[in-house]
C-alpha cells in the first residue's frame, strides 16, 4: 500500500509516528464504528462499518544535497461492510439490566408495559416479580373515572400481559367512557388511545360490548387527518404532518377495522393501502442496506428520533396488515431493511429504545407481508492455517430458525477489485444439528487477504418465497488469514565499488537473531527476504520497514521495497552519511513486517551494525532533538502542588503580654507626672450650658476613638467614614462652642 519505490527515504524520528503497526491492523483490531449518528444509541460491538485504519504518515525525505521536502501522505481506506446479527443472549442479559424494578415496580404503567413486553418477546422466564404492585396500579387506573386516556391505555396493555383480576363492571365502565371519548374525538392521540384501549378490552374480556357501529365514520375521521404523502397530522388545526403520527394512525385504523361490527367499506382500505405505499416511498436508507423512517420536520417539542419513528410505523403497518386481507404492495427489501435498521443499532442503552427495538422486531418477525431472514456469520476471520470452516447462519430477526433453505456463495472477490472473483457459485452444506450452513474447505483459489463474499439465500419451498424476505444477495467482508512463510532472509555488507560481498549472514526471522556487522561509509548494507502465503504465492504485506537506531536514540526508518519475488533493501552509506548526521557507532537494526491477514506479523530486532562514518564537517546538520514522548505530551501533566506560606514564628504569649504591660508603664508614669505637677480641673466651666458642651466635647472625642476601635475590629472603611462624618460635624460644633467659650473667658481675664 505504501509506494515501494521510496528508496532512501528516511523517517526522522522527531516527526514520524507509526500508528500502523500490525497490532492495530490485525483483523481482530478492526475498529467498528457506528455511522448512525442520528440514532439515539451507538453501539460499537455489532455495527456495520468496519473502518479500516486510516493512517497519516508524515515523513521527511532528505536529498543528498540537503533540502528537506515535507510530504504528507494520508492513506485511509474506508470500506462499507455490513454484518447484522439476530437478537441473541446478549440482548436478554441487557434487558434484565435495563429493566430492573425499583421498589417492586417500574414506575409508570407505560414503563411497566415496556418491561413486561420486552421480557415476553425475549422469552425471559426469570423476570422480576412485579405483578402485585402493578395489578394494584392497573385496577386503580381502570377504576378511576378521572385517570387520563393514556394511562388507561397502558393499564390495559399491562393487564394484557399480567392478566390481573379486573371485574366486568370495571371493563364496562371503561368501555363506556372510551366510546364517549371516541364520539367527540378530534385529535389523533384521542383516537389512538381510545381505539387501542377498546381493542385491548376486546381481547381481555369478551363479555363487554366494544364493537363500533359507526366504524366507517371513525375510519373516515382518522383518515381525514392524513396528508397526501402518506403522513398524518395530530389534529385538524395542526398543519404539521408527521411520520410518527402516521404510525399511530395506522395502528388506530387497524383497531377500527378489528372493532367494526360490520364490514368496512373496501374502498377505504384500498386508499389506505395506497397511503402506506406512499409512506414507504419516503423511507430513507443507509448504504449498508438498512431502511428507516425519520421525521422530516424538526420540531424540538414533539420530535421523535428515527428509532421511535420507525418503530411507530412498523407497529402500525404490521397491525394494519394483520387485520386486512389482500396484499400490500411493499417490497420485501424494505421490510428486510427495516429489520436491519433495528438490528444494526446493537444493544441500545436506554430502556425506551430497547423496547422500541425489540417490539418492532417482534412485529416484523410475525408480520403478514414478509418475514425478514437475516444471514449472519459467526466468524468473519478465517484462518487458512487452522483450516477454519466458512460458517453461515440464517435466522429470523429474533433468532428463531428459518424454513428449509440453501445458502449459496454466489461470488467472492478481493475487496477493492470488483471484477476478479475467486469463487463462483458454491453451495453450502447444511448441518441440521447446529443449524449452520458451512463450507468444508475453502477453495484453492482463496489465499490470504480480505475478501467480499456474496451470499444468496435460496428457499426450498416456493410458498415460502412469498412469506420471507431474503433480500437477494448479501455481501459480507471476510478476512482470510494465515501464517506467512519467511525464507531466504539474509543480511550482507557489500563493497561499494564492485558490489562484492564482504560479510553475509543468514537470518532466521521466525526466531531470535543477534547479527553483528561492521561497515564504513564506503560500503553498503543489503537486507533481503522472501514471503510466501500458505498457498505458495508471493505475499506483499502492508508494511515492511527497516529501522536503524543509533545509540543516541536517533532513528531512521526505511521502507523495504519488493522486486518481484523478494523483498530487498540496499542502504548505500555514502549517500546516507548526511542523513545519519555523521553519527558513527552502533546502530540497532529492527525489521517490521505486518499485515492484517498475516498471522505471524512481527517486529524483530535483527542485530546491530557498527558504522564508521567520517568526521562531521562544520556545516553538517545537527541531529534533531529527541522526540517528546507523545504520551507525555498529551498525557496528564505533573500535578501542581501549591506551596502555602508557612505561618510566621510567634513569640511565646507570656513575653508579648509582658511587653503589653511595659507599654502601659509610660502611661502610669504620665499620670504620676501629672499628679506631681499638680494638674487640676479648675478651668472646667462651672455654668450649666458650657459645662454640658465641655462634657459633650469629651464624649464626642471618646465616641470617635470608640469608632476607630470598632473600625479595627469589624467595621469597614465606608461605614466608618459615614459615621465619622456625623460624629465629626457634631464634634466640630461642640468643640467650637466650648473652645470659643474658653477663649472668651481667658480674654476677659486678661483684660481684667
Amino acid at each position, binding site marked *: 500500500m505504501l509506494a515501494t519505490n521510496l528508496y532512501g527515504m528516511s523517517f526522522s524520528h522527531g516527526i514520524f509516528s507509526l500508528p500502523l503497526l500490525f497490532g492495530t491492523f490485525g483483523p481482530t483490531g478492526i475498529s467498528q464504528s457506528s455511522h448512525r449518528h442520528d440514532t439515539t444509541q451507538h453501539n460499537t460491538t455489532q455495527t456495520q462499518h468496519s473502518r479500516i485504519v486510516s493512517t497519516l504518515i508524515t515523513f521527511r525525505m532528505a536529498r543528498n544535497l540537503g533540502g528537506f521536502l515535507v510530504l504528507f501522505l494520508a492513506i485511509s481506506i474506508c470500506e462499507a461492510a455490513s454484518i447484522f446479527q439476530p437478537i441473541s443472549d446478549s440482548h436478554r442479559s441487557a434487558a434484565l439490566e435495563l429493566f430492573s424494578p425499583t421498589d417492586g415496580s417500574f414506575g409508570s404503567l407505560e414503563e411497566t408495559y415496556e418491561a413486561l413486553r420486552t421480557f415476553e418477546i425475549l422469552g425471559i422466564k426469570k423476570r422480576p416479580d412485579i405483578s402485585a404492585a402493578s395489578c394494584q396500579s392497573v385496577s386503580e387506573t381502570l377504576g378511576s373515572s378521572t385517570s387520563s386516556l393514556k394511562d388507561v391505555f397502558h393499564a390495559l396493555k399491562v393487564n394484557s400481559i399480567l392478566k390481573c383480576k379486573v371485574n366486568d363492571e370495571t371493563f364496562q365502565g371503561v368501555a363506556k367512557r372510551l366510546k364517549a371519548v371516541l364520539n367527540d374525538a378530534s385529535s389523533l392521540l384521542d383516537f389512538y388511545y381510545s381505539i387501542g384501549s377498546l381493542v385491548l378490552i376486546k381481547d381481555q374480556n369478551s363479555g363487554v360490548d366494544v364493537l363500533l357501529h359507526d366504524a366507517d365514520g371513525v375510519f373516515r375521521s382518522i383518515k381525514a387527518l392524513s396528508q397526501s404523502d402518506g403522513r398524518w397530522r395530530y389534529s385538524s388545526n395542526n398543519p404539521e404532518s408527521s411520520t410518527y403520527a402516521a404510525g399511530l394512525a395506522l395502528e388506530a385504523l387497524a383497531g377500527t377495522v378489528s372493532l367494526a361490527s360490520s364490514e368496512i367499506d373496501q374502498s377505504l382500505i384500498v386508499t389506505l393501502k395506497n397511503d402506506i405505499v406512499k409512506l414507504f416511498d419516503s423511507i430513507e436508507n443507509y448504504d449498508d442496506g438498512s431502511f428507516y423512517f425519520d421525521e422530516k420536520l424538526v420540531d424540538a417539542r414533539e420530535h421523535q428520533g428515527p428509532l421511535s419513528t420507525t418503530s411507530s410505523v412498523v407497529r402500525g403497518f404490521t397491525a394494519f396488515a394483520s387485520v386486512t386481507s389482500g396484499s400490500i404492495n411493499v417490497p420485501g427489501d424494505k421490510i428486510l431493511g427495516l429489520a436491519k435498521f433495528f438490528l444494526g443499532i446493537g444493544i441500545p442503552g436506554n430502556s425506551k429504545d430497547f423496547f422500541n427495538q425489540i417490539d418492532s422486531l417482534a412485529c416484523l418477525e410475525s408480520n403478514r407481508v414478509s418475514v425478514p431472514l437475516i444471514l449472519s456469520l459467526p466468524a468473519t476471520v478465517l484462518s487458512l492455517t487452522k483450516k477454519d470452516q466458512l460458517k453461515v447462519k440464517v435466522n429470523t430477526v429474533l433468532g428463531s430458525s428459518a424454513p428449509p433453505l440453501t445458502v449459496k456463495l454466489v461470488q467472492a472477490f478481493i475487496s477493492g477489485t470488483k471484477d476478479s472473483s475467486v469463487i463462483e457459485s458454491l453451495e453450502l452444506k447444511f448441518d441440521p444439528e447446529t443449524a449452520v450452513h458451512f463450507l468444508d474447505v475453502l477453495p484453492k483459489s482463496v489465499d490470504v487477504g480480505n475478501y467480499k463474499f456474496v451470499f444468496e439465500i435460496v428457499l426450498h419451498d416456493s410458498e415460502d418465497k412469498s412469506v420471507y424476505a431474503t433480500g437477494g444477495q448479501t455481501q459480507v467482508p471476510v478476512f482470510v488469514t494465515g501464517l506467512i512463510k519467511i525464507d531466504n532472509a539474509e543480511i550482507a555488507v557489500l563493497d561499494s565499488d564492485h558490489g562484492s560481498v564482504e560479510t553475509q549472514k543468514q537470518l532466521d526471522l521466525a526466531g531470535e537473531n543477534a547479527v553483528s556487522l561492521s561497515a564504513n561509509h564506503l560500503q553498503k548494507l543489503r537486507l533481503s527476504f522472501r514471503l510466501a502465503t500458505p498457498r505458495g504465492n508471493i505475499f506483499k504485506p502492508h508494511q515492511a520497514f527497516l529501522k536503524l537506531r543509533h545509540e543516541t536514540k536517533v532513528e531512521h526508518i526505511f521502507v523495504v521495497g519488493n522486486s518481484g519475488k523478494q523483498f530487498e533493501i540496499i542502504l548505500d552509506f555514502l549517500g546516507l552519511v548526511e542523513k545519519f548526521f555523521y553519527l558513527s557507532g552502533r546502530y540497532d537494526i529492527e525489521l517490521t513486517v505486518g499485515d492484517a491477514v498475516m498471522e505471524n506479523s512481527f517486529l524483530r530486532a535483527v542485530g546491530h551494525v557498527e558504522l564508521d562514518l567520517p568526521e562531521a564537517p562544520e556545516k553538517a546538520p545537527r541531529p534533531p532533538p529527541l522526540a517528546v514522548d507523545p504520551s507525555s505530551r498529551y498525557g496528564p501533566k505533573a500535578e501542581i502542588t501549591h506551596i502555602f506560606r508557612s505561618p510566621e514564628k510567634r*513569640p511565646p504569649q507570656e513575653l508579648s503580654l509582658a511587653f503589653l504591660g511595659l*507599654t502601659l508603664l509610660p502611661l502610669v508614669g504620665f499620670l504620676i507626672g501629672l499628679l506631681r*505637677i499638680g494638674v487640676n480641673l479648675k478651668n472646667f466651666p462651672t455654668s450649666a450650658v458650657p459645662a454640658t458642651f465641655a462634657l459633650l466635647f469629651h464624649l464626642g472625642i471618646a465616641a470617635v476613638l470608640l469608632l476607630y476601635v470598632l473600625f479595627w475590629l469589624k467595621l469597614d472603611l465606608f461605614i466608618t467614614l459615614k459615621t465619622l462624618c456625623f460624629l465629626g460635624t457634631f464634634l466640630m460644633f461642640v468643640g467650637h462652642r466650648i*473652645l470659643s467659650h474658653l477663649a472668651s473667658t481667658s480674654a476677659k481675664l486678661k483684660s481684667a
Partner: protein
Amino acid sequence: MVKSTSKDAHALFHSLRSAYAATPTNLKIIDLYVVFSVFTALIQVVYMAIVGSFPFNSFLSGVLSCIGTAVLAVCLRIQVNKENKEFKDLPPERAFADFVLCNLVLHLVIMNFLG
C-alpha cells in the same frame, strides 16, 4: 579634672532644672505627654528588637502612632508657648482644636493600617 567636670555637669543640671521650674504648667503637661509617647514607642521598638517584627504593619502603626502624636504635641507646645512671638495672635484654644483634629485624622489612618 574629672571632678570639676562632674561638678560642672551637676551645676548645669541644677540650672536647667531651676530654669525649667519656671515653665508654665500647661507646657509641662505637654512635655510629659511627649515623654510618655516617646517612651511607649521605645518600648515597642525594644519589643521588636528582642522578639521580631512579625505583624510588621501592627508594629509600624503602634510606633508611628506614638511618634506622630508626640510630633503633634510638640507642634502644640510651640503654638501654645507665650514666648513664641510668631504665634502670638493664635489663641491656645485654636491650637488645641488643631491638635485634636490632627490626632483624630492620624489615628484614622493608623487604625486603617493596623490590620
